[in-house]
């Protein structure tokens, strides 16, 4: 399977049990009280093998950006199809750009790409539920677990786009000290063949 074969679907047409977990288009407060609408349009992934084959960008498979652990909701963890917000393509494109700049492999951690609003870490308040955030734990041979590495690569990521937020190094709220968090904001993507009517 390749990227051209990805089928976008309207989350509002999913079964009730999927809608309860993915909450397509629902309004959600972030940690500052700002309201954002959760993603409504998703790519449907038929199997883990498909996710491993699909390259969203030359160096990033879909599987890397949707790998979660057992803290994900049962249905979304164990059964296919899986659903991933369409904006994940924008994330992959940015990561490819970033990888070119750092000129080294970029490793996304488990739970570090898309997590559903039902995931136990962060839930719907986390920007990971938009599929536009990545936690990078390693670049080349460097583990990003100190101020020097996180600040160095954070500066490079920030320089690539004003749309990118890089969390500063630290152990407080909104900071990271064992990975580099970057995100593109609360971006939702509506594929051309989908309608936002209704």
């Amino acid at each position, binding site marked *: 399977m390749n990227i051209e074969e990805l089928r976008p679907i309207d989350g509002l047409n999913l079964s009730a049990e999927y809608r309860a977990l993915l909450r397509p288009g629902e309004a959600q407060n972030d940690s500052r009280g700002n309201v954002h609408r959760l993603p409504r349009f998703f790519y449907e992934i038929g199997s883990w093998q498909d996710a491993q084959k699909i390259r969203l960008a030359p160096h990033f498979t879909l599987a890397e950006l949707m*790998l979660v*652990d*057992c*803290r994900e909701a049962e249905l979304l*963890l164990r059964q296919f199809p899986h659903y991933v917000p369409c904006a994940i393509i924008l994330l992959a494109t940015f990561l490819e750009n970033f990888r070119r700049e750092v000129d080294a492999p970029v*490793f996304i*951690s*488990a*739970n*570090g790409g898309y997590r559903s609003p039902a995931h136990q870490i962060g839930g719907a308040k986390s920007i990971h539920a938009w599929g536009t955030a990545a936690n990078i*734990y*390693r670049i080349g041979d460097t*583990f990003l*677990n100190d101020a020097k590495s996180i600040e160095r690569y954070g500066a490079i990521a920030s320089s690539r786009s004003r749309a990118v937020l890089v969390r500063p190094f630290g*152990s407080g709220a909104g900071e990271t*000290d*064992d*990975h580099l968090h970057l995100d593109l904001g609360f971006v939702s993507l509506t594929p051309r063949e989908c309608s936002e009517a209704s």
Partner: protein
Amino acid sequence: MASLADISVNLREEVEKTSRESKAHAVAVALLDFESGFRFSLAGNRWFHAASTIKVAVLLAIFRAPAEGRLRLGDSLHVRTRFSSAANGLPFRLDSDSDAMPELYHAIGRTVKISALAEGMIAASSNLATNLLLDLVGVEYARNVLRDAQVSGVELRRGVEDKTAHERGIDNQVTADGLLTLLCALRGNFLSNESREQAIRILLAQRFKSMIPAGLPAHATVAHKTGEISTACHDMGIVYLPERQPYIAVILTEFDPEKDGRHETVAAISEVIHRSLTGAERKAR
């Protein structure tokens, strides 16, 4: 064969003699023999720092959780080294230098199966595996499991290597009698058959064999867990001998830090227990 009362008196004398000769600050022993029904407890309700014996309490919680729909042992868990202190919630990290399973650190950022972490926590006494598993189920859940299993004498309060909590007196503590009831819970009907077999298999895979097993004949197998920090040196296990029913032995000791001969003391007590229960000859040294 001596009466059970004689065994008890003899065992107490021999353990106390071994304890005196080793210059241990404290020794506690708890014993349950499934062959004869013999029970023995010496200072069985004295509290000790748990050291790594607390990992058996985490093991019980992890293997209880599937029956309650909380997890599946084949599920995967994200490996990271950052945890929150039980004292103040601030982060602390583990590093591979202080872990008996440094290879687990190669999986940072990726996932490892819960069953593999459980094995690493016990067989290699991995601190990282322990904290990952305890972080997954939560201290409160693990405490509730101990309560439901009617295990008293095991106070699980935090993960391992939480120095801030230690400085504030928040430590995991155990008694010999408590650890004996914990092993009884693992061996009994508290867990499903499948979970029980897997938990015992993990305890049988213990890599550190210089204490209880060292005092036994070569044909014995032991499902056990050691625990050792600066002052504490423990071993707890189920001893299997093909010619008889198994017995559970818990041996807890406290020494001056850096005191030599701690493992040998526990091994000597293990030998005394074996001799007392089986009438075997004293092991040549």
